[in-house]
């Protein structure tokens, strides 16, 4: 395909998210009324796993964010990835991810939700490591997969336990069982499982380290997966489970604590970065922390703050990521200090960056300002730690304002700088996204009532039914939140002015941190590899002796143990039968020959003794009515001795280490006697029981009639069980061929 044609085709695929977007828009009026629609298709109805779908206010809001940003990300990528080797693959992954994410927010079944949850994890892995020739991209992709994948498995444990208690996997049926679940003794365990799942996915402390590393992905992927959608899956889960597991002290304390710490940590680390993309990644961690913190509350203002900020953040963060992608694409660098004066060459990009950053900083008239006001109102009403929540919110917002300044002012204003590529405006497909999304932040900010009524309130009431929804207004009057807003702006401005010295100081501090999540992860990975290597060296050490000892030891102990546990009769005394003297002599002779083989230091002596044992067995067969066996045994014994003699001539003579010359051999002897005793005891137990002669009787009855043979053993071998004999012949032939090929290689 020609390059321009493939770009046009890629742009056309944006119709898919656009269609879903339109479909979801049609659900908005119903969602405002609090209505939800349900579909269900049978999948595995026997265990309650079905493709249940629920469309309510919360899923509509998330779905609109996913498909809305999705449209612009697809348009952006069409140009951004142009000429890439895996152009088609990129769009395949991108759309698969988009569909999985839609599935996740529409799923009304715990197991279905888990399947989509893990699908997003896998596609995130593929997209982070998209640059698969790059070692660090691969290892960062693996890190994200391991952290979020392990979290997903923990989440599954929680889901299964919930399903076991309430006897359904329907998510919409869980809320009415909330009291039952919260009274369970293992409620805290279930809560921990669900929270670990959400925290790993949404990069909460101490699992936050994977997200900055995920910036190895192409920039549109970072904008889409790692700021607007996938990392919000954990937030979505927390909102969904708020009426089910939420409202308890454990829920509130954990979410407010973890979220607050994550927010502050993310904000501080963000200021310490000089790479624009990593800086944005840390502010995403900060935003996710704030969202978790507010979902910890149970008042309507706190939850409204969470949902409002979710929308605010998705808008400005995806726009800013796309702006960084444009800067990287058009100038060839993302280092903050090497870019300047881009406003002249990139007016449209500058517009997107400026509107998004002003929303991020919380300027009046922008949606970010309203988000911040509600945030403070919510923080002040938190049930647990309101002071901590308010402080964390103010500090994070101040740092966010400073970072918005760093991102939007530095690269665009001031004198132009020398960059690897001469900057020029990006193609329309690329700047359209940030400019539109940035402008939306302004439009929504001017008409907050519209956003509040149609999007925010239906989403909040989907997981927090309330009679008095919080109204979004352009201006809430002179009150505490407004005061806090002024404080935030002042702090943000101050931080912006001293940013350089802070960055140097922070970078210095961060380099000296003794323990970081990243390093713990590295240590864990190294320890796993070391343990695996050590275990392999221990189990597969190449010593035949140890292999045999393990096999025989396990066989002896396991068989004897199970037998002892299930034994119904006690072993009695042995009653030796009265046998003719000749037979006693024969058995004694065989036993003596056995002793000779074991202690022999001469090859010839050992072979002779083996001959005695083999011939003895033949005699036993002969005496007890098995002339065929005796004949075969003698024949095979003779052949074996001939082969042994030929082979032994070429092997060195026996060393003088026969018998019990070392402590190790004493142990071997102990094992040997143990397994020998077990075999003897088992044989005695078998022969002491009843004999089932069904098959023997059948063969005796039918040999002459059905097969016209009078030697029953022969008839069994060549007629009744002839296929077994064919198999036996194949074994003999294979052994002969294998032996021949081994010898033939020598001659060559």
């Amino acid at each position, binding site marked *: 395909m020609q390059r321009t044609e493939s770009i046009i085709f890629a742009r056309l695929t944006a119709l898919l998210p656009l269609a879903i977007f339109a479909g979801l828009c049609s659900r908005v009026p119903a969602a405002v009324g609090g209505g939800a629609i349900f579909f269900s298709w049978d999948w595995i109805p026997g265990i309650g796993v079905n493709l249940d779908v629920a469309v309510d206010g919360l899923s509509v809001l998330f779905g609109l964010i996913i498909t809305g940003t999705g449209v612009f990300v697809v348009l952006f990528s069409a140009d951004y990835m142009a000429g890439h080797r895996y152009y088609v693959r990129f769009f395949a992954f991108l759309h698969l991810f988009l569909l999985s994410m839609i599935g996740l927010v529409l799923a009304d079944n715990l197991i279905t939700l888990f399947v989509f949850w893990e699908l997003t994890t896998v596609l995130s892995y593929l997209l982070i490591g998209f640059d698969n020739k790059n070692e660090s991209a691969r290892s960062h992709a693996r890190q994200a997969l391991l952290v979020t994948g392990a979290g997903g498995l923990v989440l599954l444990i929680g889901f299964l336990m919930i399903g076991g208690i309430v006897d359904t996997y329907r998510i919409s049926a869980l809320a009415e069982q909330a009291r039952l679940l919260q009274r369970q003794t293992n409620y805290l365990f279930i809560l921990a499982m669900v929270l670990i799942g959400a925290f790993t996915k949404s990069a909460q402390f101490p699992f936050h380290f994977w997200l900055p590393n995920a910036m190895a992905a192409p920039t549109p992927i970072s904008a889409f997966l790692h700021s607007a959608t996938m990392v919000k899956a954990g937030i979505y889960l927390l909102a969904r489970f708020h009426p089910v597991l939420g409202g308890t002290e454990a829920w509130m304390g954990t979410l407010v604590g973890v979220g607050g710490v994550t927010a502050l940590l993310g904000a501080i680390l963000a200021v310490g970065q000089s790479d624009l993309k990593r800086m944005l990644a840390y502010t995403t961690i900060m935003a996710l922390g704030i969202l978790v913190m507010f979902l910890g509350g149970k008042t309507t203002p706190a939850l409204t703050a969470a949902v409002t900020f979710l929308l605010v953040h998705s808008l400005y963060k995806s726009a800013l990521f796309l702006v960084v992608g444009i800067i990287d694409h058009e100038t060839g660098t993302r280092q903050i200090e090497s870019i300047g004066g881009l406003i002249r060459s990139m007016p449209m990009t500058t517009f997107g960056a400026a509107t998004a950053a002003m929303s991020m900083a919380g300027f009046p008239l922008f949606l970010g300002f309203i988000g911040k006001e509600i945030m403070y109102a919510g923080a002040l009403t938190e049930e647990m730690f309101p002071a901590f929540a308010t402080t964390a919110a103010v500090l994070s917002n101040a740092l966010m304002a400073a970072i918005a300044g760093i991102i939007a002012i530095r690269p665009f204003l001031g004198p132009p700088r020398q960059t690897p590529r001469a900057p020029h405006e990006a193609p329309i497909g690329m700047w359209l996204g940030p400019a539109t999304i940035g402008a939306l932040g302004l439009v929504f900010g001017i008409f907050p009532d519209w956003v509040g009524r149609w999007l925010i309130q239906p989403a909040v009431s989907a997981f927090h039914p309330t009679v008095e929804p919080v109204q979004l207004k352009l201006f809430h009057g002179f009150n505490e939140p407004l005061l806090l807003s002024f404080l935030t702006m002042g702090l943000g401005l101050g931080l912006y002015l001293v940013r350089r010295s802070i960055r140097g100081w922070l970078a210095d501090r961060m380099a000296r941190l003794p323990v970081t999540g990243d390093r713990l992860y590295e240590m864990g990975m190294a320890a796993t590899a070391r343990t695996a290597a050590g275990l392999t060296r221990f189990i597969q050490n190449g010593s035949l002796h140890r292999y045999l000892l393990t096999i025989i030891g396990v066989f002896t102990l396991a068989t004897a143990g199970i037998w002892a546990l299930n034994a119904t009769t006690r072993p009695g005394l042995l009653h030796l039968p009265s046998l003719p003297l000749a037979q006693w002599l024969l058995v004694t002779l065989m036993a003596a020959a056995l002793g000779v083989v074991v202690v022999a230091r001469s090859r010839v002596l050992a072979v002779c003794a083996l001959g005695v044992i083999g011939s003895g067995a033949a005699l036993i067969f002969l005496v007890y009515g098995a002339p065929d066996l005796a004949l075969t045994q003698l024949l095979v014994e003779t052949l074996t001795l001939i082969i042994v003699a030929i082979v032994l001539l070429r092997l060195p003579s026996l060393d003088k280490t026969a018998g019990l010359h070392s402590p190790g051999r004493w142990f071997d002897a102990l094992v040997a006697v143990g397994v020998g005793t077990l075999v003897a005891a088992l044989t005695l137990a078998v022969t002491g029981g009843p004999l089932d002669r069904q098959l*023997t009787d059948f063969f005796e009855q039918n040999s002459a009639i059905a097969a016209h043979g009078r030697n029953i053993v022969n008839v069994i071998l060549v007629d009744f069980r002839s296929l077994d004999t064919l198999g036996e012949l194949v074994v003999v032939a294979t*052994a002969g061929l294998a032996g021949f090929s081994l010898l033939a290689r020598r001659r060559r």
Partner: protein
Amino acid sequence: METVLALLTGTMVAGSVFLMLGKNLVRFIFGLMLASNAVNLLIFAAGRPDTSRPPLIPQGSLQPVAAVANSLPQALILTAIVIGFALLAFIFILFLRAYQQLGTVDTEAMTNSESGNQDTAPSERPRP
């Protein structure tokens, strides 16, 4: 006879295991031959050897006229003897080749599956 065979089988298994646990390939072969015989005797004992009359049907009759030896274990043992022999013959050749290749019959000295660095996985080796 079963009691005696059971004891004999147990003793043979003990001797065979002791020989195979030694570090000499030649003794390992002896142990394997013993084990082969021991298992055959075990099956024979399980069939309750209690008569010396072989399982044959006389002329002019469609069934054995008196109680004959149990034919089923005999058929099994006959197969086992032949397969055991094939296995032994192959093992002899394998051990002979191993000795010719490595110059030792000490199993503890044969721990390297391939010549060269045993700790290198195939994927980590430099490609030709």
